């Protein structure tokens, strides 16, 4: 639990490796942008990170029951804030649409109205899509994993994929995912670390917030972001 | 007409039928007697290919089968020539007594329910089981099951009927009754092969008696010839007990188990 985590300076973080470059397995080690960011934060405040790898269901259940202390890559939303206390954001996720390479009909959010858009269950991207779809014209098709959506979009069974823009760009560039990103990024959300609402955790959150400030200020965040995405996702687009 | 020529059958290493040939003319009743384990049931089962003979020829009516090379349709034709009463009855467990008798009529002869039931009830009546028409085999006594088995075999009315100890579980009254039913059929010129341990029964119903021992036909002839004047030593020895049985009353004074 978070109590013991502080005692022995080990922090248990739940993770669902969902693919390069966010986090993935290589040589039995967790790698990726999220991994580097979070390990940098906890190194700064002198904690050791213990990754607990399960599927998304397990991550949420573990957080809820205190089997882990926090979760990586968890967008901060009003509903989630009711249940958990969040740290300062360590990066800003932006959604975008991915479509088949040969698709020349969809160029923007407007073009998917009346069409089907694939989404990975539990991701926050469907929420941002809905925010941009006041008349409820987009049909969201939920999937368990992204790999199947890639195929369905590429083969035209589903029109588009809503997901993290930078992630998809990196996957297309480095791993040859048969999609292209279209239109503007939209729906910026803060990604920060959730903790159960306890007093000890409030103290920990304060510590983490300080570390986030430091790392942002000294350029560590920016370096990591450039390394993985060729752009800086650790600051809000609005500020850019 | 049934003609069996040089039938041989072994299970694994043990030879059960060694070289069996005999024939039965139309309407003839043949009784097969012989010690337990001599191969009587196996012989009947070979005749309708429930057991595949190793070699030999089987002729029933106009169907002739060389047992070393048979086709499915030949076997099916052969089986259509006979019906069988099993030593262990083998009643259809999922059918009532009546359905046991009528099911084949409905399926193979395409009779409708009314026609089949009429035949079935008539036969059940003859074997004294009309009141058990709707009972399932599990709630019938041994003798009742045996009688249903007989009615079932009689119902299909084939060329010939093979009986494997059809009265083993019957009391003297029912032995008599079943005998009458069977003889009613015998009078209709039905060919029958009856395996039995009841020598009296054999003597009464048979036109010909075949005595088997150890997979061979040791002696065959009219009941009178075989029972009253057996030629072979083995036959004599086998029938000695039967004769002793008959004369038990005389020995009775010598002590309780004098006949032994």
């Amino acid at each position, binding site marked *: 639990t978070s109590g013991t985590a502080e005692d022995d300076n080990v922090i248990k973080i739940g993770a669902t490796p969902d693919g390069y470059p966010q986090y993935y397995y290589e040589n039995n080690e967790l790698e990726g942008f999220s991994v580097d960011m979070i390990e940098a934060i906890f190194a700064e405040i002198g904690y050791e990170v213990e990754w607990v790898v399960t599927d*998304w*269901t397990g991550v*949420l*259940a573990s957080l*809820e*029951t*205190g089997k882990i202390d926090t979760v990586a890559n968890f967008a901060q939303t009003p*509903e*989630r804030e009711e*249940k958990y206390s969040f740290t300062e954001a360590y990066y800003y996720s932006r959604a975008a649409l991915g479509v088949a390479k040969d698709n020349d009909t969809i160029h923007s959010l407007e073009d998917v109205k009346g069409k089907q858009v*694939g989404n990975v*269950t*539990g991701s926050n991207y469907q929420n941002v899509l809905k925010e941009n779809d006041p008349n409820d014209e987009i049909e969201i*098709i*939920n*999937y*368990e*994993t992204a790999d*199947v*959506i890639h*195929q*369905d979009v590429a*083969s035209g*069974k*589903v029109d588009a994929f809503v997901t993290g823009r930078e992630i998809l760009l990196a996957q297309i560039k480095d791993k040859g995912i048969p999609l292209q990103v279209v239109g503007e990024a939209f729906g910026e959300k803060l990604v920060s670390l959730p903790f159960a609402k306890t007093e000890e955790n409030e103290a920990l959150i304060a510590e983490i917030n300080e570390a986030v400030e430091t790392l942002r200020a000294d350029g560590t965040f920016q370096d990591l972001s450039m390394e993985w995405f060729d752009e800086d996702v650790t600051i809000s687009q609005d500020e850019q | 007409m049934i003609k069996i020529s040089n039938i041989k059958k072994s299970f694994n290493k043990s030879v059960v039928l060694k070289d069996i040939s005999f024939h039965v003319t139309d309407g003839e009743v043949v009784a097969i007697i012989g010690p337990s384990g001599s191969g009587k049931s196996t012989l009947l089962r070979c005749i*309708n290919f*429930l057991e595949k003979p190793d070699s030999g020829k089987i002729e029933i009516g106009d169907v002739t089968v060389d047992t070393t090379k048979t086709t499915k349709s030949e076997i*099916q034709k052969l*089986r*259509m020539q*006979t*019906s*069988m009463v*099993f030593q*262990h009855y*083998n*009643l*259809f*467990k*999922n*059918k*009532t007594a009546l359905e046991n008798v009528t*099911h*084949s009529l409905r*399926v*193979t002869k395409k009779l409708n329910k009314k026609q089949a039931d009429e035949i079935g009830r008539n036969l059940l009546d003859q074997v004294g089981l009309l009141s058990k028409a709707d009972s*399932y*085999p*599990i*709630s019938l006594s041994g003798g009742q099951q045996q009688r249903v088995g007989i009615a*079932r*075999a009689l*119902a*299909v009315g*084939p060329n010939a009927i*093979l009986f494997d100890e059809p009265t083993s579980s019957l009391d003297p009254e029912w032995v008599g009754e079943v005998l009458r039913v069977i003889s009613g059929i015998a009078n209709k010129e039905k060919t029958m092969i009856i395996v039995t341990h009841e020598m009296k029964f054999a003597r009464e119903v048979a036109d010909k008696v075949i005595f088997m021992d150890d997979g061979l036909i040791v002696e065959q002839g009219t009941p009178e010839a075989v029972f009253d004047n057996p030629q072979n030593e083995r036959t004599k020895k086998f029938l000695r007990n039967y004769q002793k049985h008959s004369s038990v009353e005389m020995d009775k004074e010598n002590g309780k188990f004098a006949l032994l």
Partner: protein
Amino acid sequence: MNFDFGYMIEIIPELIKYVPVTLYITIVSMLFAIIIGIFLALILVNRVPILLQLSKVYISFFRGTPPLVQLLIIYFGLPQLVPALNSITAATAAIIAFSLNVSAYLAEIFRAGLDSVDKGQAEAALTVGMTYPQALRGIILPQAARNAIPATGNTFLGLLKNSSLAFTIGVTELLAQGKLLATATLNFFEAYLAVALIYWGLTIIYSWLQTWYENHISKPYVRET
């Protein structure tokens, strides 16, 4: 952890809307699987030459590999080979995959059911002039069924829940909807328990039917007392 009982109850009506999808996939797949399974079992029991070897490979494959993989192969792999199948819907692919998968399991169950029927039953049927198919229909299958029903029920209930794998290829059924609610609201245990209750309810209804049917077809085999 504070369990929000009210929420659990509240979402049940929302979840129940997805019961038809689940039942549709499950029941249709089961029917196909039963038909294929019977044929496979007959081939196994009668040791029909060539077909026997083919059936064994089929059964081995579909029992041997995860249904998830079978689902992916059918949904993505087949259209690569047969482009005409490209328009296959996810639900159809799921039904095909589950039918094939479950048929392999049923083949084994039916084989045991057929084996459990006393050989004398078939023999008796043959001696009164029935052909093997006739004996099968009237005598052997009804008796084999009795034996096979409990394990078939297991397979059905297993499929009822495994059908949620269809979510992988985008079919939202009962469990998928539960997951969606769970991850959206983070009332996670409540959503899963609500789903479980609905499955349990379906199972109870199914069990009634099975018990009724078992009693019905067991009548001939049960001694009166």
